[in-house]
């Protein structure tokens, strides 16, 4: 009799406690604001527990001696690993015809081969194992490239702006960056807005791929996680943390939404200064566009401009050979 009454009290307490907690968190989420991060990204730091990577400012670059600038521009070369499948053939073809031409090396990784387009056939339908194989392949075929950009073909990337962001970063240190999202304790880089790795990170990643316990090949069985979270977890075990890519004023450079969507949101929120508040000048990625819209973005980024406005950038990137839409 005693046991039963204790048991039922315990259960009542359990239920009430859970309810109480739910109530508190509901109230809390209604009134709380997202905390702005006051930490500043450390450009040269060895310690990577900072969470922000800021692009170099104009002044920083101008202060640099010319031979150093030249050396840096030689080192910041990017290997693009672009994930495709026959289902998204349009995007595959468009990525090939547009932004991927600006990568130093662009390799397409597919789940199964398509007759019309060339790619490394990983013969893998599940996304996480596919990414594992792709990254391993990229690492083994890097040549002398030291920066890696992983994205789906549904993302549009401006590689010159990525290079600008990475310019004074050391690829022999572990970098893992993009648009960072926090889920509970885990901070991960959003897949849909593109993921950037340094050579060192890939090296560590490939090594921990062998650890079936910490980084299981087909993902955690018990609690199914998205591939971007699996990646973050594996990297966490090697001591590598996600970092948010921002311009020199703290604005996020990696977007999974399109300019159109961001403009609409801006228009709804505050109808003045829509363009200025929307998106940074040197954005690296946008998503959510149709293949045709990507062609328009290609025109908008690389060609359309107002005459008489010059930027004295500290580096020059030449147009790729054999292309006429940029």
């Amino acid at each position, binding site marked *: 009799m*005693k046991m039963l009454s*204790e048991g*039922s*009290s*315990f259960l*009542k*307490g*359990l*239920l009430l*406690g*859970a309810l*109480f907690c*739910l109530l508190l968190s509901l109230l809390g*989420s209604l009134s709380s604001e997202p905390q*702005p*991060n006051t930490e500043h990204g450390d450009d040269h730091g060895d310690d990577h527990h900072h969470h*922000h990577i800021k692009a170099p400012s104009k002044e920083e670059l101008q202060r640099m001696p*010319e031979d150093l*600038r030249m050396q840096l*521009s030689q080192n910041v070369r990017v290997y693009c690993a672009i994930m495709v499948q026959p289902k998204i053939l349009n995007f595959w073809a468009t990525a090939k015809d547009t932004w991927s*031409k*600006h990568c*130093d*090396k662009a390799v397409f990784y597919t789940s199964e081969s398509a007759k019309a387009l060339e790619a490394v056939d990983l013969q893998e339908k599940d996304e996480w194992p596919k990414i594992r194989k792709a990254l391993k392949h990229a690492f083994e075929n890097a040549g002398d490239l030291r920066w890696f950009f992983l994205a789906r073909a549904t993302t549009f990337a*401006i*590689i*010159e*702006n990525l290079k600008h962001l990475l310019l004074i970063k050391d690829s022999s240190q572990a970098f893992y960056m993009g*648009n960072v*999202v926090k889920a*509970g304790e885990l*901070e991960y880089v959003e897949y849909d807005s593109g993921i950037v790795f340094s050579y060192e990170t890939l090296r560590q990643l490939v090594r921990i791929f062998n650890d079936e316990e910490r980084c299981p090949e087909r993902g955690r069985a018990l609690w199914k996680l998205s591939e971007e979270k699996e990646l973050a977890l594996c990297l966490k075990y090697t001591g590598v943390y996600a970092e948010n890519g921002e311009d020199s*004023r*703290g*604005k996020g450079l990696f977007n999974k939404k399109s*300019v159109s969507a961001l*403009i609409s949101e801006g228009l709804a929120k505050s109808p*003045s*200064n*829509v*363009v200025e*508040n929307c998106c940074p*000048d040197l954005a690296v990625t946008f998503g959510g566009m149709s293949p045709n819209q990507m062609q328009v973005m290609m*025109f*908008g980024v*690389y*060609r*359309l401009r*107002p*005459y008489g406005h*010059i*930027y*004295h950038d500290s*580096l*020059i*990137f*030449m*147009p*790729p*050979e054999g292309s006429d839409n940029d």
Partner: protein
Amino acid sequence: MMKGLSSRCAFFLGFLVGTCTLYFFLRQVWFERSFALPADGGSSGVASGQDVDGKNWKVEGSALINLNHPHLTGEDSHVADELYKKVRILCWVMTGPSNLQKKASHVKATWSRHCNVVVFMSSVEDRDFPAVGLGTGEGRDQLYWKTIRAFHYALEHHGDEADWFLKADDDTFVVVDNLRWMLANHTPEEPVYFGKRFKPYAKQGYMSGGAGYVLSKEALRRFVEGFRTKVCTHTTSVEDLALGQCMEKMGVLAGDSRDTLHRETFHPFVPEHHLTGKFSKSFWYWNYCYYPIVEGPQCCSDLAISFHYVDPELMYILEYYTYHLRAYGYRHRYQPPLPGGLDKLSETETEAEAGNKDSVGAAGPQAEEQAKVETVQANRVTPASEKNPSDNRTVTSQEK
């Protein structure tokens, strides 16, 4: 008594366990925070010309006189600024009472900020917007009446404040800086007008209304004179054709607005349509274009001047693409020549461009199959230090 105590303890224990369990569960599943800054934080230092409160615009009657056209962070706009002074453009936007907030307001917030003077022409006056009341009705059949009156108004009220007079619709997007580049090779005393040239019905062709067209001061004078002497009358409500016929009668030349590579600058459709669309051979467009149609990327000049059928959202997107979004350090393929009359201006720029032109074979990134050289060719461009002493612009180019 013992019973009560232990069940109370059990209750408390249960409460604690329940709270903690749910808290950890929610943390993992529910609370997701992004690192991105809120949208209105960290806005760039761009001068906003949208407030009609004397800050960036002076309201003169129903016109907006530009006091402070937008400048962008980190740019050197001395060439654009020089052109702004030399090639003064009055933009008048054809609109109507029901479209002032729906469409014209977005024109006001975007491209029209780059005009020297902008006037919104409606059938009914609106003091607050501000918009001129032309005293016509609304509708397609009123288009030429509105055009006639609008041009008369522009010459009468603002004839001295501008050299060129642009007509645009409230769904036309115009890159005014590029219009200045094209016009800088001409003078306002020439009887000439420019736009997207169509060929039927008029010997020298006429300019598409929707894509926008621009008249020199002399052309405008002749237009007004034509109506005074009744050489020109309201022949038809097809505004662009009627204007084109009047121009022809008054000896005003229909100019070629294409860039130095013969690519079109005024466009009657949205960018997506020109860049990616395939016009069916039976489409009227094929028979109307004065110059050969080019489909694909070469449809459109880098220095495009206008697009049509642009909805409000696309206005902002195009403003962002034109004036903001760019690829850092990218050396554009098309290097437009400095227009005449500006030779003395920016020797820095032309020297630099010439230096870049000589970087032959300096290919961009990808050279996969070609077992090419890994050595980077340093391309030194000596800045004209007399002009820009503070500009430490030694440049390194990158190639594979």
